[in-house]
C-alpha cells in the first residue's frame, strides 16, 4: 500500500459531486440551455447541511439510520476501487465481491428507510429498486468474472488496469457494466433523475421524505456511487500500469471519468426513459453480454 493510494479517497471525496455537474452541463448544452452551475451539487449539499430537519411521525430510527448507513457503505466501496493504475488502499482477491455486496447493504437500508415512511409512493420506488438491482447483480459479477479469467487475478486493483480494452470481450463487459452503471445510479434509460416527483420512478422516489443533513448525506452518497462505479468502467477502458509516475494514471482516470460523465449526459439527452416493463429485458440483455464475454474469454 502506498501513500498515493489514499489519493483516490481524497480525490473521490472532493470531486465526486463535480461529475453530476458535468452530466447536467452536457444535458443543458444539448438542450440549448445555460443550465445550472457546474458546482450546483456542492451548493445543494452545503445548503442541505445547514438546514434543520423534518421527520414524519410515522418514521422510526430506521429512517434516520438509512442515509448514515448508505454513506458509510459507499465510503467502504471508495476504499476498494482503484483510481487509474493506483491500487486501492484495501485491495485483495475477492474485493469485487465486497464492492458488490456493500452496495447491497446501502440499498437494503435505503429501501427500508423508504418503507419506514409508510408512503405508498416510496414503497413503489423501493419495490422497483430491489427488482432492478437484483437483475443487475448477475450482469455485474459475471462481467467481472470474465475480466478475472482474462487477467488471471481477482482483485479490482490488479485486474482493471490489466484488461486490454481493444479485445472484444472487454468491450462487451464495458457495455454490460455501463448498463449496470446507469441502472445502479438511476439514470436514463432506467430512471429520470430530474425531479423528485412525477417523472422519477425509482431512486429519487425513495428519498422523497428525507430533508436537511440526512438529504445532504444521500446526495453525497449518490455522487460517490457514480464516482465509484464509474471508476470500475474507466479502469478497464484506460489501461495504465503502476510503472508510470502516479500523476499520469490519475490524470488519465480523471479524464476518463469526465468522458463518462459526458457520455451519460449524451445518453440522457438523446434517449427517453424506458417503459418499466422493458427494464428487466435490458438488464437481462446486459447479463447475457457479460456471459457472452465470458464465453469469448474461454476460447
Amino acid at each position, binding site marked *: 500500500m502506498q501513500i498515493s493510494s489514499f489519493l483516490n479517497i481524497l480525490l473521490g471525496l472532493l470531486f465526486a459531486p463535480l461529475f453530476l455537474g458535468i452530466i447536467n452541463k452536457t444535458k443543458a448544452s444539448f438542450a440549448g440551455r445555460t443550465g445550472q452551475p457546474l458546482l450546483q451539487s456542492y451548493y445543494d449539499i452545503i445548503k442541505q447541511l445547514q438546514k*434543520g430537519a423534518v421527520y414524519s411521525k410515522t418514521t422510526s430510527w430506521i429512517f434516520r439510520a438509512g442515509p448514515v448507513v448508505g454513506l458509510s457503505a459507499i465510503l467502504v466501496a471508495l476504499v476498494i476501487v482503484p483510481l487509474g493504475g493506483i491500487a486501492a488502499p484495501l485491495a485483495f482477491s475477492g474485493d469485487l465481491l465486497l464492492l458488490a455486496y456493500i452496495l447491497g447493504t446501502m440499498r437494503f437500508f435505503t429501501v427500508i428507510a423508504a418503507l*419506514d415512511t409508510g408512503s405508498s409512493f416510496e414503497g413503489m420506488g423501493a*419495490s422497483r429498486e430491489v427488482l432492478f438491482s437484483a437483475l443487475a447483480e448477475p450482469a455485474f459479477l459475471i462481467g467481472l468474472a470474465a475480466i478475472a479469467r482474462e487477467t488471471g487475478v481477482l482483485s479490482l486493483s490488479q485486474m482493471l488496469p490489466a484488461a486490454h480494452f481493444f479485445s472484444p470481450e472487454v468491450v462487451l463487459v464495458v457495455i454490460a457494466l455501463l448498463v449496470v452503471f446507469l441502472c445502479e445510479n438511476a439514470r436514463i434509460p432506467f430512471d429520470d433523475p430530474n425531479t423528485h416527483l412525477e417523472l422519477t420512478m425509482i431512486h429519487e422516489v425513495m428519498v422523497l421524505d428525507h430533508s436537511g443533513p440526512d438529504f445532504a448525506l444521500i446526495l453525497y452518497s449518490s455522487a460517490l456511487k457514480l464516482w465509484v462505479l464509474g471508476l470500475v468502467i474507466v479502469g478497464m477502458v484506460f489501461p495504465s500500469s503502476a510503472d508510470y509516475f502516479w500523476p499520469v494514471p490519475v490524470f488519465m482516470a480523471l479524464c476518463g471519468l469526465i468522458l463518462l460523465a459526458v457520455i451519460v449526459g449524451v445518453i440522457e439527452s438523446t434517449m427517453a426513459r424506458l417503459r418499466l416493463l422493458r427494464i428487466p429485458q435490458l438488464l437481462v440483455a446486459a447479463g447475457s453480454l457479460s456471459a457472452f464475454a465470458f464465453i469469448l474469454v474461454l476460447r
Partner: protein
Amino acid sequence: MSLLIIALSIIIIGGLLALAVCKYSYLSTLLGVGSTVIGCIIGLIPVGQTIYYGDTTTFRLAWNIPYGSFFLKLDPLSAFFLLPILFLSGLAAIYGREYMIVYRHKKWLGLSWFFLNLLIVSMVFVCLANNTILFLASWEVMALSSFFLVAFEYEKEEVRKASWIYMVASYLGTACLLPMFLILGSSANILDFDLFNKSLSPLALNICFVLALIGFGTKAGIMPFHVWLPVAHPAAPSPVSAIMSGVMIKTGIYGLVRTLTFLGMPPLWWGYLLLAIGIVSGILGVLFALAQHDLKRLLAYHSVENIGIIMIGFGVGMIGWSSGMPVVAALGFAGGLLHVVNHALFKGLLFLGAGSVFHSTHNLEIDHLGGLIKKMPYTGMFFLIGAVAISGLPPLNGFISEFVIYLASFSGAMSMNSYSSLSLIGAIAGLALIGGLAVACFTKAFGVVFLGEPRSNDARNAHESSPRMTIPMMILALSCIVIGLLGAAIILFVSPVIGVVLGNPYTGEIRIASNYLLYVTAGSIVFIICLLTIAGLRWLLLSKRSVGQSVTWDCGYAAPTARMQYTASSFAQPITDLFEFFLRTKKNNTMPDSYFPAAAHFETHTADVSRESIYNPLFKTIDRFSQRMQVVQEGRIHIYVLYVVVTLLILLFWNMR
C-alpha cells in the same frame, strides 16, 4: 465424550421427568427447559474441544441388535454440526418457556417438552452414530418427535394436514436411505460406518449417491423434495420451527456429507448435479418466499433457499475435488459448511423474531402487520440484524460464507476447463441473483411488518415480549455480528472438518481464504468507523437546529389511512409477475365497477409448484392404482379364506416341483 453422554442423559432424564409430571405446566416446563439448558451447556464443552483440537473420540457399548452396535464417534465433522444444534436448542428452550406457557390451560406442556428434549437428543445421536442401525433409529426418533411437535395445535385442521405431509415426506426420504445403507454395507456383518464396503462398482456408487441425495435431501429440503418444509414449519410453535429450520434440516446435510465420506472420489457429474439442485433450490426458494403472505411460511421458503446456497457450495467443492483443484474443493466445502452454521444462527433468530411477533399480535399475516418497531423495539432490531445477515450483506455473517463460496467459484472459473468454468459461472450468477432477490424479500418482510403504520388492530395493540424471549434473540444477533467480524479466524476451524470429508485438511488453501477474510474484516471495520463518525456528525449538526415533526408527504391527499400503504403483495408484485412462469400465482380479482363502486376484492395465492405438479399427480396415480386393487378386497370372510387356500395350494405345488 463422557461429558457429552452426561449432557444427553441430563436432557433425556429432564424430558422423561417432564413427561411424568406433564399435567403440571410450570413444573414440567421448568424440568424441560432446565435440563435442556444445562445439558446443552455441558454438551458444548466436548464439542468445542473437538473442533478446537480437531481430534476424534469414540464410545462403544454392547448392544445385541442384529447388525447394530452402540458405536458413537465424535469427529470434527459431527462436532461442527453439533455446535449449532446444542447452541440453538438451548436458546430456543429458554425462549420457549415464555412462548409456550400461554398454552398452559389448553395443553399438557410436559408432553411437548418431552418431545422437544427427545428431538434434541435424537439430533445429537444422528450426528454421533457410527452404526447404520443406530443412525436410522435416531433418524426415525427425530422424525417422530418433531412430528408430534409440529402437531402441537392438532385441533386445527391445517396443522393436522401439515404434520401429516411432514410424516409422509419423512418416510419417503427414509425409504431411500434403507437401500442405500444396504448397498454400502453389503459385505459387512455389523453395519458400522467404518466397515462399509470400500470397493463398490461405479454403478453402485452412483445409485448410492442418488439415493442419499433424495433421502437426505428430503430432510434438508432441496427442491423438488421440499414440499413438507413450507407447511410444517409455519404449523409448529416458533421455538420448534427455529430448531427445525435452523438445525434439524441440517441433519440432512450432515447425512449427505457423511455419505460422501463413504463414497470416495466423486465423478464430475455429481458436482454438476449438486450445483444444479443448489441453484434451482436457491432461486425458486427465494422466489416462492417473495410470493408468500405468511411470515413463517416466508421464512420456511428461505430455508429452501439457504439449503440451496449450501448445496451450491458443496457442488462447487465437488467439481473442484473431482477435477483436482484443491482451492476450489476446499473453499467450496468450507463455504457450504460455514453457511450451515450461519444459517442456523440467523434463521433461528428470524423464527424466534417471528414467534415474538406472533406472541404479541397473534397474527402472522404480513399484510395485517406494520409499525411494530415502535411497539417492539428489541424484537425489531434483532429481526433486522437477522434480515441483513440472511441477505448475505456485510458486515454480518451471511456474507462470510457466501464470500467463501464465491471465492471458490471465481478461482475455478478463472482456471478450469470450459465446461466446469461455465458451470461455475452458473454458480456465480445464481448466487448473485439469489442475493439480490433475498434483499428484496427481506426488505419486504422487515419493511412491511416492522415499519410504516400498523395495518390492523392486532398490530396496533402489540407490545414488546419479555426479556426471556428477547435475550436469546440478542445472543443470536450478537453471534451473527461476531462471526461477521471474525470470519478470518473462524474459517480456520473448518479445516479439520474438511479433512474428514476430503481426506486432506487443505490447511494452506483455508489459510489463504482466511487472509482474504482478514481484508473483509478490515472493510467491516472501516464501515463501522464511518458509521459511528457520520452518525456523530449528524447528531452534532442536528443538535442545535430545529427538528420538526410532520406527516409523511402524501401528495396533498387529506386523509391517508394505514391501508393505503404499500403492502407486501404490492411490493413483491413486479418480481412475482416477472417470474410468473415458475410461480403460477393464482389471482382472484373482483374489480370495482359501475358509477357507485361497491366493495372490491383481490386475492393471490401461490401454491407450491412441486407439490402441484409432481406430488399431487403422483399420489393421485397411486390412489387410482390402489382403488383398482379394491376388487380383491371383498370384505367377505369366506373369500379371504379362499385366498388363503389358493395361496397354500400354489405354494404346495411350487414345493412339489
